[in-house]
């Protein structure tokens, strides 16, 4: 079943490269997404058997990330099809600088999308750390072409930074994996396999300095991919230049996968009694990320960059939650879900706004509620959700994390956390509200666009609202298991 989850998108991806007919390729995309979605839902009812000697298995954490990815991809695929249908084929002029540019081949875009899905699924299900590494690197390679869909210099620059910075980070992560392998060698030369469960089972016998070094390397390496400050530098560029479809997946799904890499290591370290050390680092980088996000959200004039930095903030929150440990980890896991749904929705809506207003500057956009009532409403909903006001999911998860902090007497952390969240709210409220409300600068007549462009974000919005008022017991159970893995 797990293999199926992998082979399905991978195969479809390869086929997509060679399919001539757009219609066929698009339907292939949607079909694969739906099948993958259906499969991952099945895994909630029938626990899939581990395969490849336990290298591929779906524990609670993996299940969360995998399902989340699948859900997002499902919603996004509809959007993508509509988006591709409406994208101009021939060369067209860039709305910011006016030069002429053309898009990449749709075939390769679709193909990469599917391969991207395959890679992310692999990240979620692989229990073997080296394999995990391979998968993470694969996500980078599969997603780079997505960012460079619009063939112009800005997206190229973004792609280059993404490639280089992430590759460097990932290389360090590989070193970390090797370090861990070293740590796993007992003095007599015998070794434990690199499968997470085995490692955490005899984590007590691991060689401490090497584990520490390994954790640092993996934190920096995967942290780069996850967008923890100060390694986040590629993130705003990539998210703002990629087409909204890609931005949604990058922010909603990819970052979680990278975080999963860190969580696996954390799992081992916690089992090895190194929690104080790792928690300390996670807290530092988490709060740092939130602070950096605050710095750049304040006075931000590009709304896609604003969303990107908000992703940095929420990655920080995830790290803080895990770093706090205890009840906060549950909150962190829940937060991962809420953030992914909300942020993906916001990026898709941003895509709609961008398509109509043809500018990414917050000053350029006004009166979305008047021009695009539905998207405008979703935008406001997303804004309130992402800034953590009830009745949306993020409120609950942020509350849980805060409670964790205060219950453990981490008052300082709690204060910094709260004040940063408050600053970011105040900073985002200005532009986000100004965009939605009021009247457009010059009268705009919105073009008639495909319904899918509204339904896709709406699907996610339902989730955002649902998890704010009701968390299904099954989900709670899995979240608890996941939290238990990290405590």
């Amino acid at each position: 079943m797990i293999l199926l989850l992998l082979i399905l998108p991978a195969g479809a991806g390869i086929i997509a490269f060679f399919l001539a007919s757009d219609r066929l390729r698009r339907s292939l995309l949607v079909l694969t997404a739906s099948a993958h979605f259906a499969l991952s839902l099945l895994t909630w009812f029938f626990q899939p058997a581990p395969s490849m000697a336990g290298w591929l298995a779906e524990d609670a954490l993996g299940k969360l990330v995998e399902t989340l990815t699948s859900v997002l991809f499902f919603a996004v695929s509809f959007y993508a099809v509509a988006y591709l249908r409406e994208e101009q084929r021939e060369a067209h002029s860039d709305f910011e600088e006016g030069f002429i540019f053309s898009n990449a081949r749709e075939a390769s875009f679709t193909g990469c999308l599917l391969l991207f899905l395959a890679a992310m699924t692999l990240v979620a299900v692989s229990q073997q750390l080296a394999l995990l590494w391979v998968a993470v690197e694969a996500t980078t390679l599969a997603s780079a072409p997505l960012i460079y869909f619009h063939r112009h210099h800005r997206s190229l620059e973004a792609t280059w930074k993404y490639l280089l910075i992430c590759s460097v980070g990932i290389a360090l992560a590989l070193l970390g994996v090797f370090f861990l392998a070293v740590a796993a060698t007992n003095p007599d030369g015998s070794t434990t396999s690199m499968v997470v469960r085995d490692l955490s089972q005899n984590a007590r016998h691991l060689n401490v300095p090497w584990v520490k070094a390994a954790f640092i390397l993996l934190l920096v390496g995967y942290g780069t991919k996850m967008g923890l400050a100060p390694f986040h530098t590629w993130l705003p560029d990539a998210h703002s230049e990629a087409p909204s479809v890609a931005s949604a997946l990058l922010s909603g799904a990819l970052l979680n996968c990278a975080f999963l890499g860190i969580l696996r290591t954390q799992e081992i370290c916690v089992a090895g009694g190194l929690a104080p050390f790792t928690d300390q680092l996670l807290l530092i980088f988490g709060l740092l990320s939130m602070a950096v996000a605050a710095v750049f959200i304040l006075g931000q004039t590009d709304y896609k960059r604003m969303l990107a930095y908000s992703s940095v903030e929420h990655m920080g929150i995830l790290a803080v939650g895990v770093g706090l440990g205890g009840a906060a980890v549950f909150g962190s896991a829940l937060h991962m879900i809420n953030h992914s749904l909300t942020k993906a929705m916001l990026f898709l809506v941003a895509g709609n706004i961008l398509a109509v207003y043809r500018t990414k500057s917050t000053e350029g956009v006004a009166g979305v509620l008047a021009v695009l009532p539905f998207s405008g409403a979703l935008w406001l909903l997303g804004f309130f959700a992402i800034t953590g006001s009830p009745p949306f999911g993020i409120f609950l998860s942020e509350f849980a994390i805060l409670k964790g902090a205060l219950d453990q007497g981490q008052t300082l952390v709690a204060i910094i956390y709260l004040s940063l969240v408050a600053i970011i709210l105040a900073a985002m409220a200005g532009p986000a509200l100004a965009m939605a409300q009021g009247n457009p600068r010059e009268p705009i007549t919105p073009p008639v666009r495909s319904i899918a462009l509204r339904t896709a974000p709406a699907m996610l919005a339902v989730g955002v609202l649902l998890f704010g008022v009701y968390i299904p017991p099954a989900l709670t159970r899995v979240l608890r298991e996941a939290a238990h893995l990290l405590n």
Partner: protein
Amino acid sequence: MAQVINSTLVLLVLSGFTLLGSSRLAACIRAVAFQGMLLGLLAICLQGANVTMTGLLLAVTTAAVKSVLLPWLLLRAMREAEAVREVEPLISFNVSIIAGAAVLILSLWLGQRLQLPSQPPSSLLVPAALFTCLTGMIVIVSRRKALTQVMGYLALENGVYTFGAAVALRLPVLVELGILLDVFVGVFVMGIAIFHISREFDHIDTDKLVALTDHLS
């Protein structure tokens, strides 16, 4: 055997300095290729007596990819980009070499902080690996051309490999190959990117790639 390993590692370090020191792209590429070859050698030597067929094959493929395929990719990219054949560093070569020296000391120190649990084939192994990684980083940070940054990345990878070689025997073949494939595709994609960059800006200086910053009010 130990002498071979040690001398290989020394050569590795020297090639690192060449990478830092040489002013011509081609020379740098050759340095990186040489590192690749050394890696192959190292992999074989580290297996020592109980050398297996797969181990041998892996070492050879690695060496081939790293010392032939990737450099060829880079040379091709260089030709397509019609880049100036100079390295154009942000900091002078002397400074880079001094930095290299500093890094060497650092990695030696770290090396003896981090003792391999099992008896290491050579005390130089860890320092050399770390040093190579860090030289790669220095190159990325201190050079202008996108191409040089790829070389830096390769050097970094080589460093990681050097270390990998020490523990590689315990990594399954499949993973080894996966890693190799990733690196290869990575460099391949970067090559394409460089090609596009040169076509877009008709040069490959990354300090022109600064359009994307925050225009904050």
